[in-house]
């Protein structure tokens, strides 16, 4: 396994192999983040593509403060937020994208969801945008509250409150404990 800094360095020097390694390494992670943030598979694919296009375009100027995974995750979050702002405030649930979110397990599928992922993403889509973003970035993206607060330019206490409210609401939205 070549570690990220080395990969990034090669990528910055124009290596397509490095780009491919980075893409394949983080593709599912970033797609999951984007789909969970947007609640929409189509938009998630677009965000994934756009994040990497920007990544290529700006590669000479990239200077990592943390790790590559966090950097790309932040890019996805920022782009997803832009998309959410630009579309109607009406919440778009996953059911609106049913043709993509298919139960079929065939090789032609663009995006493959497990049943639990589907339920969870469906519930997440019902949260207010700001709560959903914090929950996903913190739990799935592994970002600290401080990082999210800096990214969103709000106080850490606001972030923590939104996180708590979001989790409370998720509890009411998700079914009972699975018992076999």
């Amino acid at each position: 396994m070549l570690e990220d800094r080395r990969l990034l360095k090669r990528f910055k020097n124009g290596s397509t192999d490095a780009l491919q390694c980075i893409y394949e390494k983080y593709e599912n992670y970033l797609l999951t983040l984007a789909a969970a943030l947007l609640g929409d598979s189509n938009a998630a694919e677009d965000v994934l593509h756009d994040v990497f296009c920007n990544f290529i375009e700006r590669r000479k100027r990239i200077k990592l403060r943390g790790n590559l995974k966090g950097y790309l995750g932040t890019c996805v979050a920022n782009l997803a937020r832009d998309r959410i702002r630009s579309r109607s405030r009406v919440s778009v649930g996953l059911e609106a994208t049913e043709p993509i979110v298919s139960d079929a397990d065939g090789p032609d599928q663009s995006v493959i969801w497990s049943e639990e992922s589907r339920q969870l993403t469906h519930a997440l889509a019902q949260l207010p945008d700001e709560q959903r973003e914090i929950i996903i970035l913190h739990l799935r993206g592994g970002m600290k509250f401080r990082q999210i607060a800096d990214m969103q330019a709000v106080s850490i206490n606001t972030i923590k409150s939104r996180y708590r409210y979001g989790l409370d609401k998720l509890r009411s939205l998700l079914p009972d404990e699975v018992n076999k």
Partner: protein
Amino acid sequence: MKSAENIKQSIKKLNITAGPELHDRVLGSLLKTMEESTKQPSTATRPDIWRIAMKDRITKFAVAAVIIIAVLVIINQFGVPLDGSSVAWADVVNKFNSIAFFNASVYIKDNATDEPVQIEIWRNSQKKARIRVDSQLLFSDGGQVVGGYAIDGSIRKIEIEEYNEMGMAMAQKLFSFQEFSLDTVIKAFGVARERVKETTPLINPAAMISEDMLVFDVQSDISPEWMRIWVLRESRLPIRIRSWDPRDGDCVDVVMSYSAEQSAEFFDPKAYEKILMEVQHATGAGGRTNLAYALLKDPGGKDYTPKDLFEKAEADNESKDSANISGYHLPKVVQAGVTEYGAVWVMASESENRKPNGSTFYGFSDISDDLKRKYRSADSVWRVDGDVSVDVFLPENYPFDTARPKELTLRCSLEAEAMGHYQKEILVGNVKLDSWQKNTIWPQDRIKKDELQMIIWQAWTKTDDREKSQKILELVQQLDTNNKHSHQIEKVKLRMLIKEKNYEDAALLAEKLLSAEFEVFKNAKGNASYCEFYDYIVAIAANGDVHRATDLFNEIKQLKPDLSPYNNRANEHIMERLARQINGGDMSNLIRSLFTAGLDLKHVNTIVGFDVEQNEDTKPYIPSEFRRQQDPHVIKQQAYIKRLSEQYKANPLEPGQMVFNECKLKEIAYLGPVPDVKDHYFYVFNTDLHKFLKGYKSKGQAGRVNRIQIADGVKNPTLKHEIIFNSPKGFLHDECREFVMSEFGLEAIESQATETVLIAEYDGGERKDYRDIRCPAVGGSTSTPGAMSYISSGDIRLRSVFDSLAQDQEMMVVNNTGIEDKTIVTQEVANFKTAKGMELAEKWYKDNFGITFRKEQRCMPVWVIQKKP
């Protein structure tokens, strides 16, 4: 409802996978973009050594920059002749191979001006390593990471997907090579020998300031990069390694030290977790020093962690009855008082306690008295100035009787950081008070809320219990001589009427109070809330006037609070909150209350102005009873049960009588008592005969397995039937199966079979708290041996765990442990199928419950299902 912890875990594991089409499409597009982008002339363009390296398959060079062992190997790759000309260097390699333990600090910089990233490594002779990287501590065994902890202020066990990649790579590479030889290197990297360039590290005399040290320089023949290795002349051990890229100052510095080996405990993740949890729980001490360096013994006897940290933790854990556990501190009571109506207040200094994760808590969490009264926290404040807190606790029951407590116990505690699904409480300590100010109110400059407001709130929380709520209101009415709280009192009464389903009176009261409520809203400024109107809408709608309720909701929607005192940002925030109270986002209480009051979907939709079933925000709040009523399966079931009830009420069966009929109720397997018919039960099934009989005589001791053998020639028809029976003894599972057998001309004959069984025995060791038990494998699908097969938020008994093992291994488990079957042992059960599963099960049972297994041949009863002669 799902627990927050389970939701967190589910989100952490949330995974959506790109299908091959998406992968190829996006990646193809990106590679094309990249290629086009690199074609454009750039001043930064230069030969890419790493790309060349990849083409030449000499990938090791890249690895070398961060991997200490590989650094040495790479040097070999450069062509150090281990057996010939450079004898000194060969000594270095050999000497390094012979040492049992080393510690290294690695500093990595991407370019000349970057802040370095530090990694610390300890490796022992047993192929175990401990690695601290960023805010993670990883433990590896034989190159595989076997445990990881986030140490960013608190201890949290992390999943494999969270492991720092640099740390994982380091762990792997530390043990990638059995020995340092050129052949091994060639084999490990698959490099053809002829491709390995010959480069000899040269002694650099100018860099040696004394004869104590040797300095070797190595120059890559394929890039400008170089390495320098500082070695002790006498011992031949490397103490520092630097690699440098002159193009941008990309650099790796490794500082190495050698000493006596650290204890096995130091490399054991379980030992680490155990002692750190004890330390945290006992003392609250969880600074980064403790977290990163726990169990590290300095060879020179210096302290790496606070001197007596662990000794103190052990002492504290031994004295369980200690009232005051150090680490956190008890606030100092400055003043305390009990009001005329029984509220207890406490003002304390030195009130702030800080948790290891940086968050804080203040004052006291709860109180008790010698009269065994129950109290609940009603309000609390804390001020930075003087670090002073005031807590107010109200008795749960009013009116307050005349008895006065003689002693109050103030309790300071906190919920510990969760390690698993649950949180443990940490008791900081108790303070006993035997004197306080009598009949005095709390300092009003600290808490402005008056006692009556708090008592009204108590009444509001008890509207389910009319008597209690009424008593509290009567007390408040007596005390509220200025009628200051009359509106709030009336609102509690409105809520009580709704709870009692007295909608007629509720609607009258609602109409009477509405104008005052509008005034309250207008004056509430930033605290204004549309939710305050929900009870009015419910009362009026439930009384049958849906039209009026609809108009009222529309009128409320037009209300705008006075937000002039606030800035634009605050206004935006308040309006966003208010909008959610009328457009679906925060309307759960209204939706639930309307359905509970008996309104149907159509009326609810009319009142709120949208389809609550189609609105993603409100959909989950439609009560399950209402959803069930809409479910076609439930409708069919209810109709079926109603028919049974009517039929057997009119024509009851004799006690012991059973009837067996075909049943056209498709896709429903259902059993239970026939409503309103004494001792009558029904059992509807839709399966095949063999499956239906499978559970026959399966009830018994823990670890039961299917004891049925179907004789040759017994057909397996599909059953779509019902059994109705009259049984004063309750539901009869086996009798139902015997009845079905007789209907098909079958019988069950008891026989014997010699089988291998698992005998479970208990070694008498201490069993873990059932909430601490985790399945052996993390992640993967449920078919992975050791992965979780099911989980319960409550508890799982020994019997169920043995049953599961018996099913997985297809062997009876005999409980010889002396532990009762019903003992709660865990919340998680793993898949222990296959031989690998049994291996994992043996370790899991031993480590967690002190239970071991041995196999034994036993003659076991079986039931052979055969045709009646």
